[in-house]
């Protein structure tokens, strides 16, 4: 096949895939990573999802592209887990690498300090609550989208979120009671509009 002979439709399709990757790869990798733990495997899952996207018609996914991509990634992660029995990864994977590409361990440790408490509390939640919290607050999916994705009922999603937030709050308050942590607590709330 000669690329110069590709039809307009193919070009459109390629462009659609390209734009979709650009827009969504980062959030998908983040989600995939929370499912499988390590980055290369997460990238595998996401690349795989985009291979699958190549086979889809843009029209068929209009308005539900994001949930579709998340669903594919999730299903693949489940498959992989079934094959390799490595689901979910040990919780410390979640707290790791907040700082990303920091070159030295000390820099990333420092950088991580600010968010460590809440993030490590997050890892103490049961996996299903953790996942729902991520989908809601990191990926900004709605109850309904989360319910479609996880095949839980919407009521169930609402219950998980409610419980998760409540638990986090209680544990945070307990932490807050200790003097050493309250300092960090104030640091992680810049709460500025910009």
């Amino acid at each position: 096949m000669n690329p110069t002979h590709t039809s307009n439709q193919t070009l459109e399709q390629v462009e659609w895939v390209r734009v979709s990757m650009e827009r969504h790869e980062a959030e998908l990798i983040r989600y995939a990573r929370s499912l499988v733990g390590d980055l290369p495997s997460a990238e595998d899952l996401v690349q795989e999802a985009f291979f699958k996207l190549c086979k889809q018609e843009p029209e068929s996914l209009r308005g539900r592209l994001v949930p579709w991509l998340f669903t594919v990634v999730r299903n693949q992660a489940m498959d992989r887990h079934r094959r390799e029995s490595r689901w979910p990864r040990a919780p410390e994977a979640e707290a790791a690498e907040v700082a990303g590409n920091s070159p030295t361990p000390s820099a990333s440790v420092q950088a991580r300090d600010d968010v460590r408490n809440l993030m490590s509390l997050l890892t103490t939640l049961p996996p299903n609550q953790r996942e729902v919290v991520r989908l809601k607050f990191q990926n900004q999916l709605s109850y309904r989208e989360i319910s479609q994705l996880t095949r839980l009922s919407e009521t169930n999603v609402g219950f998980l979120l409610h419980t998760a937030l409540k638990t986090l709050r209680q544990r945070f308050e307990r932490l807050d009671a200790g003097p050493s942590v309250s300092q960090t607590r104030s640091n992680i709330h810049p709460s500025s509009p910009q």
Partner: protein
Amino acid sequence: MKSTPSPADWTPDSPELTAFALKDGTFDPSVPGWAERRAAAEQAVARSVSLRAEIGEIRRMADDVETDLTREAIHRLSAARREAVLAYARNPERGLPRRSSARPSQDGNSGWQRFWSVLTRPAMGYGLAAATALSIGLALWSAWPSEPGPSPAVAILSGGSNAPAEASLSISADRSMPTQATATAADALLIAELREDILRGKSPQAWGSPGRSTESSTPSESPESPASVAALVAQVKRYKLAPSADSADVLSGSASPAAELAQKSQARQATSAPPATPAIQAKTSAPRPRAQTTREIPFQSAATTPRSTFSLKPGNTSYPQIRKALQEGQLPSPDAVRLEELLNYFSYDYPAPSGSDPVSAQVEVADSPWSPDHRLVKIGLQARPAPTAGRPRANMVVLVGLSPGSSARLSWAQRSLQALIEALDGPDSLALLIDGPQGRIILPPTAAADRASLIRGVGTLRAEGAPRGLEGLRRAYALADQRHIPGGINRVVWIVDREFSAEAGTREALELLIREQTEWGVLLSVVGLGVEGPLEPSSSPWMPPPVGSTYASAATPAEALAVLRRELQPTPTTVAENVTVDVRFNPARVDQWRLLSQESRESATAPKASPTHSGVQIDAGQSITALYEIVPTRSNDSTRPGSGSELAAPAGSSSDLLNLEVGYRSPANGRVQDSAESRPARSLQMGVADVSRSSDAATADYKFAAAVVGYGLMLRDSPFKGDLTWEKVQTLAEEGQGPDREGYRAEFLQLVRKARGLQEGAVQGYKPKE
């Protein structure tokens, strides 16, 4: 949906309360019947102190979790992986690239062997094999943009004829990456590239630019000591983690140079004077990851939530994204449509403040074009303009780093530069050099009085091979030094395009160079020509990381002009600090209100009491526009009983629709570090009377603002669009054209027509594939 307990039966432990607080689940405005449920819930909440407290706590926790989760590291697919996907999209029949779920090393090895046996067939020649090795090296490099240092892949090249299979193994060992994925991705990439290049009759040896290959085989040749670079990078990265003004403040307490620099540059980046700079992305810190699914802010009850505020720094990516999608014949994803960003892409005509006030407010009220029994309130804030006379002298150096072959962008750059020359005054100077293998200076620093030489210089501009980045920038700074004007505008403008990528191993040296020069007073602006949306320096493999410089993208020639012209402006002066906007609705006149904006972390309701909230500053000439849609109370209903009114803040006159208060402190005269509390807080207040008049009678600016937001509602197919039609949007846009000196509004009208055609086509069964 299962029946849920009625709000009257809620306890602080009801999951429904969380859904209500998060405006999701059954309180998602797209769920049928939400309005009644919400009304009932609001009543229940208004009656119960404990429920209200609980809601506050839930929202606070949710905000915190969201803030922390969105700070998590961002990773993107490597260029090789992406290319493999695109190669597959181009030709799915060929099947997926080889890959296996077995453990990487063995399988990857055999894949590479197969692959190499294809490529190194005698007929293809030795040169091809060598070039292929080089191109693998490049592909792998782009796969790890953020890891400076020697690339094992490059060793293949310098070693000359290493056995390929061994090379692939050493890669996997060094990088601890799964060989199989890299191999298959690079495999697909190579085959696609090979095919295309052979078809174009390009010799394979031409793949890697000589500059790149020699540079990358002798990595890390920068003169700076590695230790100091590492320390600096650590410092800068620390700063970059701080996503907001306030965290920068926290850091600046430690007086680290990076934080100080951040603060200075924040003062600078805060410019966004709309007439000259629509859609300009100016940023110095790591971009905060955007919410991927956006929701419009729903109606709020004025009885329970009488106060609102709006963002003084709306983003600016939505409009260019939508334009790009439409130009490509696609409807944008509804997520890309952010009403407040669309609205503020355009400038509107507001009177300059008079007297001692640094900011003026203008409010216009008319009936909503899409729900005639609602009002649409347009609020515009305008900061005092910068003094026009007495711009300091400018010493400009333009570094052109366009990739060869983009002749359209080159002529576009030339036109923009010609316009820049027009804007220079006699004593200003301009120098021009090309970032390429030779790094040719085509115009030494030349006084603007010698206009003919400048124009001639711009005319001889061309791309001369792949831009190198670091070396070119060093030369540009050296030129800037020749004419350094103390206290003047010393600026290097670096024009790049999408293809640009900093040379391997030079990112840290670039960071250091840029930082040094910035402190020395030579500012850098990176302009991405033909780049849609913001330049995201920290996440793009093709950009050096940001250090105290501005980054702007220009998707159209008009935007390129605006960007370059802006670079001539002196550092913007802040006219007001700690600016807060407080809109108070009068529950006697307003039943419900809604800010036409996407939801964001900062809540549209009630300015937070926290003192850290008030860090926003406004620069000279800046203007901000917000639209509110209001459901008035029925006239016989104007004296309502006080259900929930204990929450209502007192409004001004009882006939006012709303009360607007803009609080601010005048800026510190000396160092930014002055305590804000030492300067008195002032405020500007105005009551806005209710007017019922048709939107037909409104001003052109009002109609245009309504058209822009209406366009957003239509593109989102918003549940709030009332009886809005494309016809109506188009009429509003046509009637709202006004003088339109820069042609932005005319372009908008075209986009409206385009979107209309696409959406109506889609409704009639448009399918992109048969």
